[in-house]
């Protein structure tokens, strides 16, 4: 298809035309070079977890890869995504071949948008009954291990190890958020 001659994707050293043809025809993409750049980013993130350098990663690492590319999928959304990239007979491994086009679409569509700081703050505030700027350990544990997409014990303990002020046995969430945001910059 001649309209796609501009899109040249270098994958495993082979030049494959129209790798993203389906995306191009469904929406208008003015910067074709941007697709190549996105793909490079994805491949880079994928390869960090590809221990044997054979273009596969353990299925349990997909969440880390997707998130480290800047996306905020919920666990449910992650499962949906996995269904698209798994083999017919799930082997426990995901191939780059399948992952790349799916993830490229995710990034182009800007799916799973980031949670802005103020939205996060509101979320904590919503759980702070008395609006006093902190949530007790018990309350936090109750909410996060019973509601939403519950934390595992390990996740809960880890969050507390950073967030909990041992003297008051509570989480001052504004401070916690600020601290975590700094890490990201």
């Amino acid at each position, binding site marked *: 298809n001649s309209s796609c001659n501009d899109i040249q994707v270098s994958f495993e050293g082979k030049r494959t035309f129209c790798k993203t043809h389906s995306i191009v025809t469904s929406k208008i993409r003015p910067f074709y070079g941007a697709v190549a*750049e996105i793909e*490079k*980013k994805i491949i*880079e*993130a994928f*390869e*960090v*977890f590809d221990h*044997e350098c*054979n273009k596969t990663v353990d299925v349990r690492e997909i*969440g*880390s*890869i*997707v*998130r*480290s590319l800047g996306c*905020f*999928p*919920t*666990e449910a959304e992650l499962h949906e995504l996995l269904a698209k990239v798994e083999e017919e007979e799930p082997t426990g491994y995901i191939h780059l071949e399948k992952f790349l086009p799916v993830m490229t679409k995710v990034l182009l569509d800007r799916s799973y948008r*980031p*949670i802005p700081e103020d*939205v*996060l703050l*509101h*979320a*904590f505030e*919503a*759980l702070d*009954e*008395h*609006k*006093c700027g902190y949530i007790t350990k018990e309350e936090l544990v109750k*909410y*996060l291990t019973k*509601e*939403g*997409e*519950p*934390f595992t014990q390990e*996740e809960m303990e*880890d*969050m507390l*190890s*950073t967030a909990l002020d041992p003297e008051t046995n509570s989480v001052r969430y504004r401070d916690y958020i600020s601290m*975590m945001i700094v*890490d*990201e910059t």
Partner: protein
Amino acid sequence: FLSSPSPNAHTAHQAAILIQNWYRFTMARLEMRRRYSLSIFQSIEYADEQDQLQVFSTLLFFFPFVPVSHIFTSPSVSQVVDEGLYLTEFEKKIDVPDSYYGPRLSFPLTVEDANALLHAFRNEQLLHARYVLQLLCETRRVLKEMPNITHLSTSYSKEITVCGDLHGNLDDLLLIFYKNGLPSEQNRYVFNGDFVDRGKNSMEILIILFAFLLIYPNDLHLNRGNHEDYIMNLRYGFTKEVSKKYKDHGQQILCLLRDVFSWLPLATIIDSKDRIRGLKSLMRPPKSVRDRQDQLKERIPTTRPSKHIANQNVAGKTQHISLLGSAEHSGSSLPPDPALKEWKQILDILWSDPRSQNGCTPNKCRGGGCYFGPDVTAKLFERYNLKMLIRSHEFKPEGYEISHNGKVITIFSASNYYEEGSNRGAYIKLNPELIPRFVQYQVSKYTRRQNLRERVGTIESSALKCLREKIYAHRSELTSAFAQYDLNGTGRISVNDWAAAMESVLQLELPWRMLHSQLAQTTPDGEVDFMSCFYDLKIGQPIKEVQPALVETLCRYRRDLEIIFNVIDKDHSGLISLEEFGQTWKLFASHLGIDVYDESLDKLVLSIDYNKDGHIDFNEFLEAFHVVHRLEKKANS
């Protein structure tokens, strides 16, 4: 404050989902940072190892008239004296002052001696050089009589413990002994080599292991790793450690160690009378077929071209002081050397890694040995009736890894190998049925255990520091690579171009796009100010009147040069003549394709002959060429 009713179910659910989602995002970021930090450490280490083998082939290229065997055999260990007299010789020649409060060993060693050693080392004492030399002599005598492949049977002991790389981490060894008990007839151990280098207590680990070997020669098995090799030790820190700790007798100790390492067995076979279980790995088609109902453990048994079977005595066993001479070098006019072939086999044995792809391909990461697939393992097991291979040599974040459908286990016992918090160590307990059980651990220098975020922060900054040093050592090359993308001379290029330049110059497969913000400054519109990655670094000491490019080259190849000089310096004086230095440098530079003008070389040589006595203290000289982090210097001053 106003008090509002507790959140309704819906709000709570929504809020919880948001918080959990965000939290999982930060954890994923943390995991990514942890992974790429380990990636940085590993790829730099492997690139280093490649250089190592390259350096050695370079050396061979330059000294064609030195017989290969000369470099690889022990030239100056005095063979003259009958070994039995060694103990008394050292006693006569080396005096132990009354002021020495460390352990005083008496041979033959007993458990009391071992305990005294453990106690001393816990208190950071050194063993006196005389006892070290005596211990090494005795160890050599015992090892000489062992075959290349030793045997262990589970038929009557409770469990056998297998440990992997320790790399000078004494704390790990002490922790293993604490958790698992000291070696004895009832508590048998196999150690898979790589006892030394990188950590700061390689000497103490060897002393302890050799002591137990002498006390329980049938119950403690030590196998050779690729780091039990004096050339590796020159590069990776063991030689330095010994020289520092033993100023008067260091060279003697190192000489003897070279010899001792060469007599270490390569593998241990573990068998049970009920079931045969084998551990063995073979990289290339075996030269000799051995028909044994055995299990082989550990790295790789040697498949020697000779017809002797492995448990024959000394006569059948040859020494291999260093494996690094077996590297491929084209254009060499060395005669086809059967010893060289054997070296190649042992190189394969001690350097190879398992991979999930079938076949046997050259190990590009390390530059030596190969990658072997499940089919190679299967063939091997079938041929020798084996069931499992336990090997080491490869860093594993969890201390162990199982591959090839459970047939190959990698065990790595040095926790915090790259940095505090980088990984766990592990050991294996084999019951009489030879079913493995893994025990993991991690030593920590902090009294309060760091949480994950802090640990990742520590290893990340350590990894980036290593990477920055490498970047700085390639400054000129990088600058010209960047310039090629910066057509308008703005000093800025796209992230993509910057990543491409970094990858092509440094030859490290790292996630450059992800790392760019940590290594260089970015402009508001997302471009990279490429010269900014050099801002915070400089070379240790300013060397006057020498071209900056020359300085940079010396910086980059500092470790290689250290090794080459050490090899030239046959009498281990730490000094080489100006002429030797000049010659070597010229050859080295031309081999690398570096342009070195004679004048600048002369200037350099003059500038470093501080005493004007025609000799150069090369260690002092090379010290000047290490990369310093400006910011760190400020913090320390």
